[in-house]
């Protein structure tokens, strides 16, 4: 008897498989539907949101180019996301390496601390951070938002680096050290090559999170440091224009690029490990 001929559970018979397949297509369509709506809206010739659009134009994209506010917000977002990424990678990697080699007793509470920002509502983190950053005279500076976004970026890097570091046996570093490498050399030549995929995917996640984040930005940015999500949010309460759809489409394109990069380095990493074995 072949494996396929026994309907092992309620979902794996031929009928069950067809039903699951049809159902999955519907759910995946639900997941992609909103993303699919935004791009056509940005090309609509109508200033009011009408779907499907009655005609097509690139006008809203030109409009976007003529409003420096959007460009400034984009630059602000990048000026915040890039340092956030670097800081999150540095802190998250340090934490993952330390927690990975520490005894069980300390690993638990430290993991809890490192992952806590991911579980807490951002509004609470924002409420807490605001007075602290005002005390440090950082209000309306890039530093304020970078600190806020790094708080939520550290857990992402911590998770991805921990995952790849778990596969590195401690004996490798030990071997490097006995052979005369100092701590930095052992990290640079032995540990780093094995965790760099984890670091890179953590970095991408931290960047994407910072680039999209709204709540902390609402509290921690000032007129001079307004980020793209914040500007979109402010515009949303005015009017729903195709200009917004144009911005959204451009950001979606960036997300697709980021996801593609993540998949590519993930795949490259997988291939490399296979070859090493």
């Amino acid at each position, binding site marked *: 008897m072949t494996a396929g001929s026994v309907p*092992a559970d309620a979902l794996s018979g031929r009928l069950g498989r067809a039903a*699951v*397949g049809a159902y999955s297509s519907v759910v995946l369509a639900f997941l992609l539907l909103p*993303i699919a709506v935004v791009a056509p809206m940005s090309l609509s010739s109508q200033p009011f949101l009408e779907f499907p659009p009655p005609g097509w134009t690139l006008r809203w994209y030109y409009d976007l180019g003529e409003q420096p506010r959007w460009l400034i917000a984009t630059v602000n977002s990048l000026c915040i996301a890039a340092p956030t990424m670097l800081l999150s990678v540095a802190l998250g990697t*340090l934490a993952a390496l330390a927690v990975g080699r520490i005894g069980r007793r300390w690993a638990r509470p430290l993991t809890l601390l490192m992952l806590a920002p991911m579980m807490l509502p951002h509004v609470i983190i924002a409420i807490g951070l605001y007075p602290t950053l005002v005390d440090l005279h950082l209000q309306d500076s890039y530093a304020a938002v970078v600190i806020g976004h790094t708080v939520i970026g*550290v857990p992402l890097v911590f998770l991805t680096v921990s995952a790849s570091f778990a596969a590195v046996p401690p004996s490798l570093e030990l071997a490097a050290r006995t052979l005369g490498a100092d701590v930095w050399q052992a990290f640079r030549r032995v540990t780093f090559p094995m965790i760099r995929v984890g670091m890179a995917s953590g970095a991408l996640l931290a960047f994407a999170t910072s680039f999209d984040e709204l709540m902390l930005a609402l509290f921690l940015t000032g007129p001079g440091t307004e980020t793209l999500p914040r500007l979109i949010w402010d515009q949303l309460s005015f009017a729903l224009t195709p200009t917004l759809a144009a911005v959204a489409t451009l950001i979606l394109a960036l997300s697709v690029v980021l996801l593609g990069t993540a998949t590519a380095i993930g795949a490259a990493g997988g291939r490399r490990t296979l070859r090493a074995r």
Partner: protein
Amino acid sequence: MLAPPVVFLCVFLVMPLARVMWASIGPPEAPFSVYARVVAQGFYLRSFLYTVETAFVVTLVCLATAYPLAYAVANARGWTGRLMSTAILLPLWTSVVIRSYAWLILFQRHGPVNDGLLWLHWIAEPVQILQTSVAVRIGMVHILLPFMVLPLIASMSKVDRTLLRAASVLGATPMRVFLRVYLRLTLPGVLAGCSLVFISALGFYITPALLGGARNATAAMMIEQAVSVFLDWPLASALSTILLLTTVALYLAFARLTGGELGTLVR
């Protein structure tokens, strides 16, 4: 090596949170007076109840929607599997603001959803979808669904299919195999997904604010409003403390339920 990240999080997370809790106690002559105000005004309690109810409904809908989908992805091979994973990951990488904005377009009075329902003759005239809790729930399910699907896929792809065949050969009906073997083996994924979705749903702001409006205020919306509209920091601190303690309690409860492996919640 541990010092920089621990110091950073202590200064910019633990201490600020402690400060929020401290501020919520209020002036020394009338401690906890803010909490008395919160309890006395039914509005805040109702809003907390609404938040918990929404999180609960969203979690259940996500679980029911995600389980068969995760099953299909975990058992798909080759390009179908890759295509499905990409379709699940793509929304995860796109901005929550933009996805909520897309729902705003879809749910317009003359938007695609109303048009579709009219075309199907399910409704006679356009219905109000925006500013209702239904809109909020659909939007939140859409945003949180990947967080349910991913842990489910992870635990489903670990299931040893020979166990299912063994149960089947030993005479169990397909339904029984599913309930007694498959469901039990994937229970860690179910718990992980539910905890992720439930806890994230409790703190939701963007989607309910955009799709539900002020009438359907969640806890996070009240906190934001307390600061930006009323400039009432003690009130915001008290509401934050309640939400914070609820979240932490749930986090620890779920962590205990899943055997304390907090990291596996996400992967």
